[in-house]
């Protein structure tokens, strides 16, 4: 599909549409939410400046670009705190539809306990709405591996969030 440069309005619309999930995805790679936002902003600022053309359907491109930016950020050691060392913040990255902040914090804590490769797949599947095949393509793994990681991640999350689940 042909690549093209986006107008400022289109970039803002994309940010509104994908921004929260992209930050969440970057959070599964870098140490904290500030570094994750930095990585996402870096990509969108370049789009605003018209530096990079994007494909007709920009979703996959955005995730790939954010993944690379987050990996670079981590490699350059911009944030010295590892994800595992990071304390669970009082303000969760999530908000629950029933305004249940305890559940949101529990999910954040449970997410941090997942190994990075499982965390990445579960974020892509649940909050970015990708299929396992799309998530596997983005992560550079086979669909079977992605499915396996996803299953393990769900098991761990289910265990941790049992007290908050209805029914």
């Amino acid at each position, binding site marked *: 599909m042909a690549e093209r440069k986006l107008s400022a309005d289109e*970039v*803002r619309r994309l940010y509104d549409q994908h*921004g929260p*999930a992209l930050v969440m995805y970057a959070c599964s790679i870098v140490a904290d939410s500030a570094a994750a936002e930095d990585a996402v902003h870096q990509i969108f600022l370049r789009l*605003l400046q018209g530096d990079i053309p994007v494909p007709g359907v920009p979703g996959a491109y955005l995730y790939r670009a954010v993944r690379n930016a987050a990996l670079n950020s981590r490699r350059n050691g911009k944030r010295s705190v590892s994800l595992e060392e990071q304390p669970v913040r009082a303000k969760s990255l999530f908000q629950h539809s029933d305004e249940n902040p305890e559940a949101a914090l529990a999910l954040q804590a449970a997410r941090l306990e997942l190994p990075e490769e499982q965390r990445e797949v579960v974020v892509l599947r649940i*909050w970015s709405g990708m299929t396992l095949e799309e998530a596997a393509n983005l992560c550079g793994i086979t669909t079977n591996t992605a499915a396996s990681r996803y299953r393990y991640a*769900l098991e761990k999350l289910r265990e941790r969030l049992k007290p908050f*689940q209805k029914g």
Partner: protein
Amino acid sequence: MKEHDAQFENFLREFQPRRPCALPVALAAKTIWQRRLYAAAVITVTISFSLWFLHQGPPSHKDLTAAGNTQVLPDAGPAAETLSLLPLTQLALEDPARLDTVLTEASRHVLPSLRGNQSTLRVLAKE
């Protein structure tokens, strides 16, 4: 099991990622504006310098002395003129021997003379 998973997936989807900070659009706009301004400034300076250089032409003896900056000394005579720096620099790079000649010639008009009755040194000596 699949139904169980689907149910739990729906539960997870009840949690939504928080909205990140607004995109720093002003910063992006400022960067673009600064780039354009810088490019415009560079182009303007380059064109101005080129036009000025073309207008000046090769340095002649007339160019080497600027009538406007004449510093009249009591005994310097009517031809006293100071030299302008830019043509001299150009001449120094292109023809140092000619520069020497020009400076010697100019010094006769610029430096104070001791010969005249009203020369600066004579006036000072009388005082």
